[in-house]
């Protein structure tokens, strides 16, 4: 692991602080969600952290009504795949958007949330 690689632990520490950090391949410029050891595009092993805007649009979404045991108290809740402005996608809980307003293409913005004491990715209204 190179020193500049963003570990999973560091990524979610930064989520807790309200920041999303991707990694950019120093060889070919490909953007990726951490952690990655090798660039899936060119195979290089040199990454630099890149802050993400947190702005994106919903690529797809669902409302979970039958939840795993650990999340049953939260149900129903919305989960969306969000394509961020920079081109990478992240999955997150959608908060403060009525279920019937959810739509593919809807603009949303990253919002740090906590689920069962763990920092997690949320998206709220843009």
């Amino acid at each position, binding site marked *: 692991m190179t020193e500049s690689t963003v570990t999973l632990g560091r990524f979610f520490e930064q989520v807790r602080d309200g920041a999303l950090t991707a990694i950019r391949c120093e060889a070919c410029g490909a953007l990726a969600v951490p952690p990655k050891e090798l660039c899936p595009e060119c195979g290089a092993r040199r990454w630099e952290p890149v802050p993400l805007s947190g702005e994106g649009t919903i690529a797809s979404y669902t*409302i979970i009504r039958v939840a*795993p045991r650990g999340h049953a108290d939260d149900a129903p809740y919305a989960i969306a795949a969000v394509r961020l402005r920079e081109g990478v996608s992240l*999955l997150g809980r959608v908060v403060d958007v009525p279920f019937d307003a959810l739509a593919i293409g809807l603009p949303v913005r990253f919002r740090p949330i906590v689920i069962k004491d763990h920092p*997690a990715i949320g998206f709220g209204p843009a």
Partner: protein
Amino acid sequence: MRRVAVIGVGVTKFGRHERTSAELFAEAAADALADADIPASRVQALYYGNVVGGETEKQLHTGPQAASVLGIPTVPTTRFETACASSHAAFRHAVMEVGSGASDIVLVGGGERVLNVPTADSTEYFAYASDASWEQTLGLTFPGVFALVARAHMHKHGTTEEQMAAVAVKNHKHGVLNPKAQFRKEITLETVLTSPKVADPLKLYDCCPFTDGGAAVVLASEDVARRARRPIWVLASAAASDWMLIGDKRDLSRVPATERAAATAYRQAGIGPADIDVVELHDCFTIAEIVATEGLGLFEPGVGGPAAEKGWTSLGGKIPVNPSGGLKAKGHPIGATGAAQICEVVTQLRGDAGPRQVEGARRGLTHTLGGNTATVLVSLFGRD
């Protein structure tokens, strides 16, 4: 590679059982050996699929356990885990062991038991096949994964909830004809459309059930198979993988691993989708069948939904899909599913499928998907 054939098949009744997954596998395996007319002493290896044994039965090291319960404790055995595609992955590796000349007779199969735990627990255990840090933390479920696929497919192609429901109606209709199926009851579009929502837009009847069961096949080299009753030849067995995170997929309306595994399998066999007479594919959710029929090249993208609605995939249709009832009605004991699909296609190609027989079937395809669409296996079969 030497030619490899399936010379014996065995499947338990699918549904709720009061036996362990090893016992269920062992019943199926003994049936498969009897079907092949091969004594257990000639088996040189066991490739075994089991997924959530560590959770539902507090059991790891399930390969040797399955071999011991079957009564062949000294054969080399390995447990395969690629989520719901486990015993199909085991099959591909077993084909390579026989094809390479390392062994002449190999047993492949799987066993799974999940109905001994509450649904909220099994839902959680199945979700372990999604990413722990990025997906499980959010409370993503497998119905949720395929709901994301469904929503994207509806948006891109205009696929409707009625078309998805048509898949469930068709597979339940087929399941009535399969004595081993978990559900042997016809349902209507209304049943599906008015069932409780699980993960919008998927409803309860869009989802396959939790199932206990076992399945096994006996693989043999050409020399051995030539002396067997009715060998069914393995024309190809291919695997493909894709990004672990469902969010990393560029186009959620597609399953690229299905497209890649199918392309490899067709190339290995030197045939194409138009040459296939019968298909057993991974309909863990109704939308999964629609997307798979497109990814396997049976229909153009966007035509999978209308094809289901028009009956093209029903018994008697253009290309019958899941004559066994599929995961939806036959049931889905995850570690055994891939082997069970192979058992059905072999039964079809032998002409032994009774009321659910696809008339004159000469070539068949099985397709099994694991996890968030990150693993896909496709195998092709043919009779002499």
